[in-house]
């Protein structure tokens, strides 16, 4: 194991290690975070949901957005896959359809950071998907 020889070493190491635990730390505090659920059933995965999820995670991290990204089963909008549900604290969930990795970046930029709806991506339902 590499030795930590100074305070600077420790800080460096800590920063490198923190990202992994961030996921857990955020989990302690889900209410104050934006929750993103990516539908990952066969239909979703086939249409590229996995890449969408990666993109959302990476882009949110880059922009330091407090977000919890999880996967979920089929939401029943197989025609609009990949679908993503976003729940902002205190707001009703919104489901977006036809998300590609490019659109995912846009989703992060516009909806997650700002509060803008996305062009070309129609919110398919305003109800909670779990029911």
């Amino acid at each position: 194991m590499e030795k930590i020889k100074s305070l600077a070493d420790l800080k460096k190491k800590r920063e490198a290690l923190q990202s992994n635990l961030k996921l857990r730390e955020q989990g302690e505090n889900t209410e104050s975070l934006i929750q993103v659920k990516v539908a990952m059933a066969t239909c979703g995965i086939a249409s590229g949901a996995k890449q969408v999820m990666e993109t959302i995670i990476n882009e949110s991290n880059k922009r330091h957005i407090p977000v919890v990204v999880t996967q979920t089963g089929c939401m029943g909008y197989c025609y609009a896959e990949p679908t993503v549900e976003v729940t902002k604290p205190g707001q009703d969930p919104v489901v977006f359809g036809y998300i590609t990795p490019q659109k995912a970046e846009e989703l992060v930029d516009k909806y997650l950071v700002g509060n803008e709806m996305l062009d070309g991506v129609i919110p398919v339902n305003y109800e909670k998907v779990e029911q």
Partner: protein
Amino acid sequence: MANYKYHMLVCGGTGCFASQSDQIKKNLAQIIEEKGLQNEVQVVITGCFGFCEQGPIVKMLPDNTFYVRVKPEDCRELVEEHIIKGRKVNRLLYTDPENKEHVADSKHMEFYKKQLRIALRNCGFIDPENINEYIARDGYAALASVLEINNPLATIDVIKKSGLRGRGGGGFPTGLKWEIAAKNHADQKYVVCNADEGDPGAFMDRSILEGDPHSVLEAMAINGFCIGANKGLIYIRAEYPLAIERLLIAIKQAEETGLLGKNIFGSDFSFDIELRYGAGAFVCGEETALIHSMEGERGEPTFKPPFPAQEGYLKMPTNVNNVETYANIPVIILKGWEWFSSIGTEKSKGTKVFALAGKINNVGLIEVPMGITLREVVYEIGGGIKDGKKFKAMQTGGPSGGCLTEKFLDTPIDYDNLIEAGSMMGSGGMIVMDEDDCMVAVSKFYLEFTVEESCGKCTPCRIGNKRLYELLEKITEGKGTMEDLDILKSLSKVIKDTSLCGLGQTSPNPVLSTIDNFWDEYLAHVMEKKCPAGQCKALKSYIIEPDLCIGCGACVRVCPVNAIKGEKKMPHEINQADCIKCGACIEKCKFNAILIK
């Protein structure tokens, strides 16, 4: 390259471990690998989550789903449903006892709502066997800053101002203790962590060591720097194999990373930590006895002064603190004494970890701010009394403590209030008793413990406690007299007043406290020869209610001494002279026809 999207935290505390949490971890890892998800899902064994009643616990992150009473065979479903399909497995969620609804998130459980985790901040959160996770949680940053400031007295001052008091029982101000040890000059000094948690029904320290060993190591190093010691020793019970294993791993990792050993963070400060094993003697929780035990001697306490800070391990100045006390240190350094002292009551700052057990719905390990009321602990965190029975008393402080009754339900819990209420903080055992518990028998239980654990050095503890126990035995057998009750009281006071160490000075507390609060129960045993709780064997008789008995004969077959007679299909009868009161019949009777009177 792994890019984890899910973390599955499996509780690895002794309680959950005992219910195969290691197998759960193995199964999860295997299934995840089978599904090719090993780079997306991380399975981690953590320290205790605290909610032992519901163990084994598996927590899913980032969505913070809290699965309870998980069995190894549930693992496949957890992976396939929760991870792959993103559906919560409802049957493994916690059910709120009030409204019978499933609660997925631990934050919404009554058990966790009022808790504040400082000493347990990393328990159930990080992998205790991985130093990197500790570092990621600001681990060793407190040590780094202390070394950078390079002013031991200033650091001691921070601890002093924080108001932290020893969590082992006595409640001595920690900063003051450090200061005394720092001021005694010697070539060699020692820092000792007391991990000889012997209080029956308490497992706070063990949980910290199992869940967050590095916090203790870091605090010991800080302590060493402050008092001028370069050697630390952890005196740990040999009965804690898991804690020992995790500590050894932690020490090794810290040494390999250079966070223990020579010239830590490039400073002049060097610090090593070794383990010393206890061997099953409760009295070794007393610091002088602990030191003798570490020296390979019988664990007999010696008169103080000299205090360990003057003459301790190998006759050198030694600072002894317990595990929980240490676990608070790094946070205090990082967040400041102002933050810490803003929590708690006027004279008791911060939080306290308690092992909540007994006749309570939510058995487990809790950490609450000082000043919380007993009511909140019992009825909110604890979820009330088991089987809807009536709360009778809460025993705190273990064999050194006493019972708190209903009238103290709204007393804020802190060091001084507990003493005023006739009990004490102790190391943190909280045992809840209900209407079925006989308080005379409870004090006999504690005395039996003390008698067994007395070192035998001083007369009042060696013979006095034995006599107390014998008196209680006599009373629970229905042979006690009013004079015995007088002797019980007066002898208890003398034992407290004259014993050599804390063990003897507190051992009569359970007796005095129950006499104070449950005098009528003592009287009932003595005057009426009755045990109101129906617990004392000699004072109860098993009687068959003829109206309820259908004469099935089940009790006859199970009675080990053939004390039950009766014709088939006719009400049976128990011969009281033969009955050994084993209770076998009552368990067998399907018609509730056997009563205890």
